[in-house]
C-alpha cells in the first residue's frame, strides 16, 4: 500500500516535471530537474536494473510530453540512476549502507539525503547541459547554467524528498 502511494506521488511529480519543463522557459540558465531526486527516492529493494528502466521511461515521458528533444533527459538521467548506489556509499558509511533497507529521512537525516540528491542532480545537469548545448554554446554559459540549475534543483529536491519519503513515512 505504501508503495502504491509512493508511485502515485511519483507520477504526480512526473507530471509536475513535464509541466515545469514545458512552461518554465523564462530563462535559459535554469532547467528544472526533479527527476534525479525522484530516482534517488525509488526504493532500494527495486534494484538497479529496474531503477534504470524507471529512469529511462520517466525521462522519455518528460521529453515526449514537454516537447523537448526526445532522449535528452533519458541520456542524462540513466548515468545518474546507475551511480545512485555509489553516491549513497559516498554519503553514508559502509555500515549504514549495508544495513540500509530503504531511504528514510527520519533514520538517515535530511542533510545526507540532500547531499546525495545534489550529487545525482549535478551529474544529471552536467550531461544535460553538455548535450543540450551540442558544442554551440560558450563554456561560460554552460558553466553558469550548470551552477544555477544545480543550486535551484537542490531546493526543488527538498520538496521531492519530502513528498516521496517524509510524507510516505508519516502514513
Amino acid at each position, binding site marked *: 500500500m505504501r508503495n502504491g502511494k509512493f508511485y502515485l506521488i511519483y507520477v504526480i511529480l512526473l507530471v509536475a516535471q513535464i509541466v515545469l519543463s514545458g512552461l518554465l522557459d523564462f530563462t535559459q540558465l535554469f532547467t528544472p530537474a526533479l527527476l534525479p531526486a525522484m530516482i534517488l527516492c525509488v526504493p532500494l529493494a527495486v534494484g538497479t536494473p529496474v531503477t534504470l528502466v524507471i529512469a529511462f521511461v520517466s*525521462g522519455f515521458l518528460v521529453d515526449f510530453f514537454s516537447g523537448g528533444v526526445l*532522449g535528452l533527459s533519458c541520456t542524462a538521467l540513466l548515468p545518474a540512476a546507475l551511480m545512485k548506489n555509489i553516491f549513497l556509499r559516498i554519503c553514508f558509511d559502509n555500515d549504514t549502507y549495508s544495513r540500509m533497507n530503504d531511504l528514510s529521512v527520519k533514520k538517515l537525516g535530511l542533510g545526507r539525503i540532500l547531499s546525495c540528491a545534489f550529487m545525482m542532480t549535478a551529474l544529471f545537469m552536467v550531461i544535460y547541459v553538455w548535450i543540450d548545448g551540442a558544442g554551440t554554446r560558450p563554456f561560460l554559459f554552460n558553466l553558469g547554467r550548470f551552477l544555477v540549475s544545480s543550486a535551484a534543483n537542490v531546493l526543488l529536491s527538498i520538496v521531492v524528498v519530502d513528498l516521496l519519503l517524509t510524507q510516505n513515512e508519516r502514513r
Partner: protein
Amino acid sequence: MGRSGKTSLIISAAIFIFLEIAAVAMLSRSSVLQDIWLNRLSHRVMAATWGGSEKVRNYFSLEKSNEALAQQNFELSQKVRRYETLLSEMERSAALDSLGAKDVFSYTAARIVQMTTNSQHNYFVIDKGYQDGIGANSGVITENGVVGIIDAVDKHFSYGRTFMNSNISVSARIGRNGIVAPMSWDGLHSDRAKLKDISVHLDTEAGDTVWTSGMSLFFPPDIPVGITGKSRLVFGSTSEVDVTLLQDFSALKYVTVATNRHIEEIKELAE
C-alpha cells in the same frame, strides 16, 4: 563482492548500456543539431581510439623497427664506403687521364695490402692481379708521384718493388721543359731522392718541381714527383740534385697501376 553481486552488476551494466544506446539513438533522430554534434563526437572518439591503438602498436614494434633500421644503416654505410672508394679511384683515374697519356697507358685502381719501408729493398703487394688486367713491368703511381714497378703478377694480387729500392731509377724532368735525368731513392729517407748524372754545365735551381719525363716504359709523363733542393758536384764530372718527394710512402693506401699498352712492341723494337 559475492557471485550474485557480480551477476547483478553485469546485468545492471548491460541494461544501462542498452538503454543509453536507445536514448542516444532517440536523441540523434529527434534533433538535427544533436545529430550533427553526436556524429562529430563519434568521429573524434574514433580518431582518438585509432590514433591511440596505432601509437600502442607502434610502441611495441619499436624493437623490430630499430633492428631493421640498424641493418639498413649497416648496409647504407657499406654502400657509402664502396662509393667513396669508387669515387676516389675515379678521381685518381680522371687526374691521370687529364695528363694526356691515356692512349699509351691503361689505368687500374688498386689498394696496397702489404708494404715495407724499412729496408734497402722495399716491396709492396696490391689487391689486383692478372684477372684485373695487370701485367709485369707495369708502373705504380699516385697523383703525388711514383710508387714502384710490378715484378710478379698472380690471379688476384701483384708484387712489386717500391721506389725505395736502391736498384730502381725513374726518368725525371726538372720543370715542364727542363733537364731530364734519372732519379733514384737516396737510400736513407722515405721522402728523399736524388737526380743523378746531370752535366756540370747545366744549372738547376732549388724549389723547381720534378716531373716524370715520359721517357720510360713504365710511367706516364708529367706526374709531379718532388721538389728540387741543393745540388752538388760528384767526382768532378757530373752533379746531382736533392729531391724532396711529394708522396709520403708511410701513408700510402690507394694507388693506380699504369700499364703501357705497347710495352711488348717497344721492347721487340729495342731488341
